């Protein structure tokens, strides 16, 4: 994954570099490369802090803790805890979907389950750590302000439509 990403990123860089050389010669290409490196140097300290924080979060908020929190909570409290757990847990889809599945096995309701998954996707603290340095404060804050409450809202809606998540995952999928 990492390697494939790097190869495709370097490929795109090479294409753009070739285009810049063709369009404006070495001076334009050099200007672009220098501008990119300058921007990279500016964000490096922030990115370092973000990764330190993410590493520490992994020690503090473990899948075991999340499972413990979410045990069998129902109602508003379940929704809220699901959302909080999703927003706090670090890691990509290869971490949170297996946890979501284990929650299904411990017969969690649809509301808290949906709140957990959407919390991870829309109001994740770990994601804010990446968004702030790369997207800048304005874009990050507007994005977060407009979407953070949707996990709770949509989870409530889903629990009204389909109260129990017990039949998940579908037989044909497993």
């Amino acid at each position, binding site marked *: 994954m990492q390697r494939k990403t790097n190869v495709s990123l370097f490929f795109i860089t090479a294409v*753009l570099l070739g285009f810049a050389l063709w369009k404006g010669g070495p001076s334009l290409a050099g200007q672009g490369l220098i501008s*990119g490196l300058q921007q990279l140097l500016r964000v490096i300290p922030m*990115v370092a802090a973000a990764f*330190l924080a993410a590493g520490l979060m992994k020690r503090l908020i473990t899948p075991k803790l999340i499972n413990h929190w979410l045990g069998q909570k129902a109602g508003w409290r379940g929704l809220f805890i699901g959302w909080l757990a999703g927003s706090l847990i670090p890691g990509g889809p290869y971490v949170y*979907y297996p946890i979501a599945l284990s929650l299904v096995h411990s017969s969690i309701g649809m509301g808290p389950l949906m709140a957990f998954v959407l919390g991870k996707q829309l109001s994740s603290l770990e994601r804010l750590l990446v968004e702030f340095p790369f997207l800048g404060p304005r874009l990050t804050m507007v994005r977060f302000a407009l979407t953070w409450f949707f996990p709770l809202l949509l989870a409530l809606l889903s629990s009204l439509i389909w109260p129990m998540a017990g039949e*998940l995952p579908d037989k044909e999928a497993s």
Partner: protein
Amino acid sequence: MLTITIVMFAAAALLALAANKKVGPEQTRQGMAEGLRLLRQMGPSLIPAFLIVGLLDVLISTELISSWLGQEAGLRAILIAIAAGVLVAGPPYAIFPIIGGLFRAGAGLGPCVAFVTAWSIANLSLFPFELSLMGPRFTAMRLSLTCLLPLLAGLAASFLG
């Protein structure tokens, strides 16, 4: 920029204190070491990502970005951004610098918010995990609940921007 850097280091320091208290100094050290290892791992991706940002800066004029992805491009720009958010796969630290660069170069707040929202909930790379672990019914339900969200968030952000 400096303020955010300070805030983020403060956040890391607070987390270190909390970890030290909760899980002890050994685990705290391990957590920090893991963070630095992650940084080393993704470092190589950051260099081309930012070279792309710089090259796009000099290659694409502000007018061109504005006319495709700017505030005045309206709904069309938001729809392009949503499609890109679904299709463009890759880790956030490779993709977000490019979005941030486009935003600084004249892309509108609406399309950028729409991209990040669509990328968060409906990027193609999510579905192998979701479909295989949670099954098609959960996936369909989650998508039908959230499918309008990138559009709504993008439109709302357009009004703010």
